[in-house]
C-alpha cells in the first residue's frame, strides 16, 4: 500500500480530449497485426494468404519460444502478409467476415483458485493471450520460463489526452477481480495495482488481494517505470512483469468463458479527430481510419498512442497492440519569418522565453513541427525536473552515447524505458531525442545479454 505524490514532470494540455462516453463501432473491414509491437519476439507467420481464421486463432509465432503466439482479433480470411526491406515482416492483415466466430479454449468456471502457476501459464499460452504480459527491463514480451519478483497492473495513464481507466473499467469489477487472482499465481512476490490518486471506478478502488498504490502528480506519474521505481525498484538481474489493466479483463474471460476476447476500448483524441472524440469500442488491430468514420482530414499526423509515446502509423495504419488511444494532430512545417525574434504569444514552451509562458495556461493546439534545428546538448540542466525517478538523465545519455554499458547500468538504465524521457525530448532546446537514445542503449544491452 502506498500513496505517492510526485512533483517532477509536467502535463501538456492539448486540444482534443475524448468525451467520456463509450461508442460501439461496427467491426472494421480489415484488421492488422504488426510484429513490431511485440518487443523481444522474432515472429513468423503461421498462416498463409487465403487461410480462414477465427477470433483467437494464431497468426504469428515466436521463432525462439514457439509457444508464444499472436492471435487474430477477428474471424475472416488472411488478406495480406506485408513484408518490407530484407523481408522483415511488417503486418498480417485479416479481411473480417463480420461473424466474429470464436476459437474454443479450455474453460475454468468459478474462482480458479485450484490452478497452479504452470496451469495458468499453459492456459495463457494456449489461449494465445500470453503477449499481454510484458517484462522490465527492456519492455519486451515476458518469457514464461522466468519467475518475476513482482507483477504490476498498469491502471493509470498520464500521457496527454490519455484514456481514463475509470471509463474503460467501469462495471467490470467481478471479471477484474478474477483476473487479479489468476495473475497473482504467476509470482511468489507481490501483485501491485497502480492507480491514479483520482481513480473512482469501483473496479479499481475495491480490488482485493493486491497491493494497491495510488500515484498523483504530473506526467509521467502514470508510467510503468515510475510505478516500479517507487514501489519495487529493479536492479541488474531482477525481472518484473507488467500488464495493462484492460488486459486483466481479457485474461479473466479466457479462463471463465474459454474465449479469446479481442475487443478494445480506444480513446479517439487530438485536434484532427474533431467530431469523433469518444471512447470507441472496437477490436485490437483496428485501422486508424475506422475510428474516424472512414475519413481522415488532409494534413494530419495519425498516431497510435499519445503525442509523447505514440507511433506515427500513417493514415493507412492500425492501432498498435498495446495502445488504447489514437491521437490525430495537424502537421507542422510552416516557416515563420524571424521566428527567434517573435514575442511568442501563441507558442507553447516549458521554458519562460516566450510571452505565453507568463499567460494563463490553456488547452493548446500543437502540431508536429520540431520548432528548431538539431544541436549538441547545451542546456543540460532541464532534464532532471521532468523525470520523477532517481536517474541523472544527462549523464545516462552521455554513457549511452559513449556506448559505456557498465556506466549506463550503474546509472539505472534498466529501470527506464524511452517513453519516460519523452518530456526531456520535448523540452530540449537542442532537439535531442533523449528517449530514442535511451531505447538504443537498452537495445544494445539486451543484445549483449
Amino acid at each position, binding site marked *: 500500500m502506498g500513496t505517492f505524490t510526485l512533483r517532477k514532470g509536467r502535463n501538456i494540455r492539448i486540444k482534443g480530449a475524448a468525451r467520456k462516453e463509450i461508442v460501439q463501432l461496427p467491426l472494421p473491414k480489415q484488421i492488422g497485426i504488426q510484429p513490431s509491437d511485440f518487443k523481444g519476439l522474432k515472429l513468423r507467420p503461421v498462416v498463409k494468404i487465403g487461410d480462414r481464421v477465427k477470433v483467437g486463432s494464431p497468426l504469428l509465432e515466436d521463432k525462439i519460444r514457439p509457444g508464444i503466439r499472436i492471435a487474430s482479433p477477428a474471424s475472416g480470411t488472411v488478406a495480406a502478409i506485408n513484408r518490407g526491406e530484407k523481408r522483415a515482416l511488417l503486418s498480417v492483415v485479416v479481411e473480417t467476415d463480420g461473424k466474429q466466430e470464436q476459437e474454443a479454449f479450455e474453460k475454468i468456471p468459478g474462482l480458479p483458485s485450484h490452478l497452479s502457476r504452470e496451469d495458468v501459464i499453459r492456459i495463457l499460452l494456449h489461449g494465445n493471450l500470453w503477449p499481454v504480459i510484458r517484462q522490465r527491463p527492456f519492455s519486451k514480451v515476458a518469457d514464461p520460463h522466468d519467475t518475476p519478483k513482482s507483477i504490476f497492473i498498469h491502471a493509470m495513464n498520464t500521457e496527454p489526452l490519455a484514456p481514463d481507466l475509470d471509463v474503460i473499467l467501469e462495471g467490470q469489477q467481478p471479471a477484474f477481480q478474477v483476473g487479479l487472482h489468476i495473475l497473482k499465481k504467476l509470482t511468489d512476490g507481490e501483485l501491485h495495482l497502480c492507480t491514479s490518486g483520482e481513480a473512482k471506478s469501483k473496479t479499481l478502488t475495491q480490488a482485493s488481494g493486491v497491493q494497491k498504490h495510488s500515484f498523483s502528480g504530473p506526467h509521467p506519474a502514470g508510467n510503468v517505470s515510475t510505478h516500479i521505481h517507487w514501489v519495487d525498484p529493479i536492479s541488474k538481474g531482477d525481472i518484473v512483469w507488467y500488464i495493462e489493466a484492460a488486459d486483466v479483463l481479457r485474461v479473466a474471460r479466457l479462463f471463465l468463458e474459454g474465449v479469446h476476447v479481442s475487443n478494445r476500448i480506444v480513446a479517439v483524441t487530438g485536434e484532427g479527430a474533431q467530431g469523433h472524440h469518444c471512447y470507441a469500442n472496437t477490436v485490437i488491430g483496428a485501422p486508424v481510419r475506422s475510428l474516424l468514420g472512414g475519413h481522415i482530414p488532409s494534413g494530419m499526423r495519425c498516431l497510435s498512442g499519445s503525442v509523447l509515446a505514440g507511433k506515427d502509423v500513417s493514415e493507412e495504419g492500425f492501432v498498435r497492440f498495446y495502445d488504447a488511444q489514437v491521437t490525430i494532430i495537424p502537421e507542422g512545417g510552416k516557416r515563420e519569418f524571424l521566428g527567434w525574434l517573435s514575442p511568442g504569444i501563441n507558442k507553447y514552451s516549458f521554458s519562460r522565453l516566450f510571452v505565453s509562458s507568463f499567460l494563463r495556461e490553456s488547452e493548446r493546439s500543437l502540431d508536429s513541427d520540431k520548432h*528548431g534545428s538539431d544541436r549538441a546538448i547545451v*542546456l543540460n540542466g532541464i532534464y532532471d525536473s521532468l523525470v520523477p525517478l532517481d536517474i541523472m538523465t544527462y549523464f545516462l545519455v552521455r554513457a549511452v552515447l559513449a556506448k559505456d554499458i557498465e556506466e549506463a547500468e550503474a546509472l539505472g538504465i534498466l529501470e527506464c524505458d524511452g517513453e519516460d524521457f519523452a518530456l526531456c525530448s520535448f523540452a530540449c532546446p537542442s532537439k535531442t531525442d533523449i528517449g530514442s537514445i535511451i531505447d538504443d542503449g537498452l537495445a544494445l544491452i539486451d543484445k549483449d545479454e
Partner: protein
Amino acid sequence: MGFLENQMKKVETLFAKGKPLAKLYPVYEALDTFLLTPGTKTQRAPYIRDAIDLKRVMISVVVALFPCIVMGIYNTGYQIQMASAAEHSWATAFGQGLQKVLPIILVSYAAGGFWEVLFAVVRKHEINEGFLVTGILYALVLPPTIPLWQVAVGISFGVVIGKEIFGGTGMNVLNPALTARAFVFFAYPAQMSGDAVFVAVDGFTRATPLAVAAAAQRGTSAVAALHQAGYTFQDIFLGFIPGSIGETSTLACLIGLAFLLITRVASWRIVAGCFLGLTAMSSVFYFLHGAGTLALFSLPPHWHIALGGFAFGAIFMATDPVSSSATDLGCWIYGVMIGLLVVLIRVVNPAYPEGVMLAILFMNIFAPLIDHFVVRRNIRRRITRAAAK
C-alpha cells in the same frame, strides 16, 4: 512568407550538391534559418516539441547583456570625457564610447565568426548560435584601448583552442570567451592590464579601484584608499569607473541577472553559490584584518561584489551550462568555489589584482570532477538499494 520562402529556395540551388558554392551550404543554412524558422517536422516520438530552440536561448542571453552593452558604451565615452576634462553630455559620451566599442564588437564577431564558419564547412555541420554569445562576452571583457588585431587574435584562440578542438559547441571544457581573454591577458599584458589601458585617452593613466586597493599600505583601510583616489561605492556599483568595457556596472549585470533568472536560462544555483562563496571568504578576511595585514583584507564583502568583474563573471561567464557543473549539487559547489577563489586571488596574490577570470577557468576544469563525485553518489545509492533487499 511565401515570397521570401521562394526566394530562399532559389538561392538554395546555388548551394546545392555539385554546385560551386556547395561547400558553403552551412552559411546558406544559417541565413535561411535566421530569416525563417526551419519548419522541419518530427519523425519520432514525441511528435510535438517545445517552441524553444538554441537560437532563442542564445538570443535571450544577448538580450540579458543589453544593459551591460549600453552601460559599457556610455561609460567608455564618459571616462574619455572625464580624462580630457571635456564638457560632459550624455549624447557625446555615448557617441565617443560607440566609436571605441563598436569596432571591438564587430572585429570579435567577424574574426570568431570566420572560424565558426570554417569549422562548420569542414566538419559539414550547421553553424552554432553559441557564438552569438561568445563573441559579445569576449568583447565586453576587453579594455576599450585594446588594438583591434589583438581582439582578432584572442577570439581566434578562444574559438579554435577553447572550443573547436574539443569538438565544437557543447563539448568544450573551458568557457571560450574567457579562454580568449586569458590568452590576450597573458600574451599582451601591456595592452590588457595596468593603469593606462582602461581609459581610452592616450597618455592618461588612472589606477582601477582594485589596483588602488591592492596598492594601499599594509594595515590601512582599503576603503579609505579608494575614497582618497576618488572612488565612491556608488560610482563603483553603477559602473562609472575605468575598467573593461562591459563589466564595470554591477547594476547593469544585476538587471541582466534578473532577466536570466526570470527566463530560467541561467542556473540560479551557480550565481547564488558565487555570491555566497565571495561573501563568506571576504567576511573571513574582513574579520582577520589588522595592523599587519594587507589593506585588501579590510575590504568589506559588498565592495568585493561591486568591484572588478565579479558580477559580470558570476552572472554571464560562470553560468555557461557547457563548461560549468551539470548537477544541482555540483552547481552549488562550483559556484561557491568560484566565489572563494575570486577573493583568495584578489586578496592574497598581489600579482593579479583581479581573480574572476582565473577563478572561473580554474573551476571550469574542476566541474567534471565535481560532477563525477555527485554521479558516484547516485550510483552508490542504487548499489545500496540492491544490497538492502
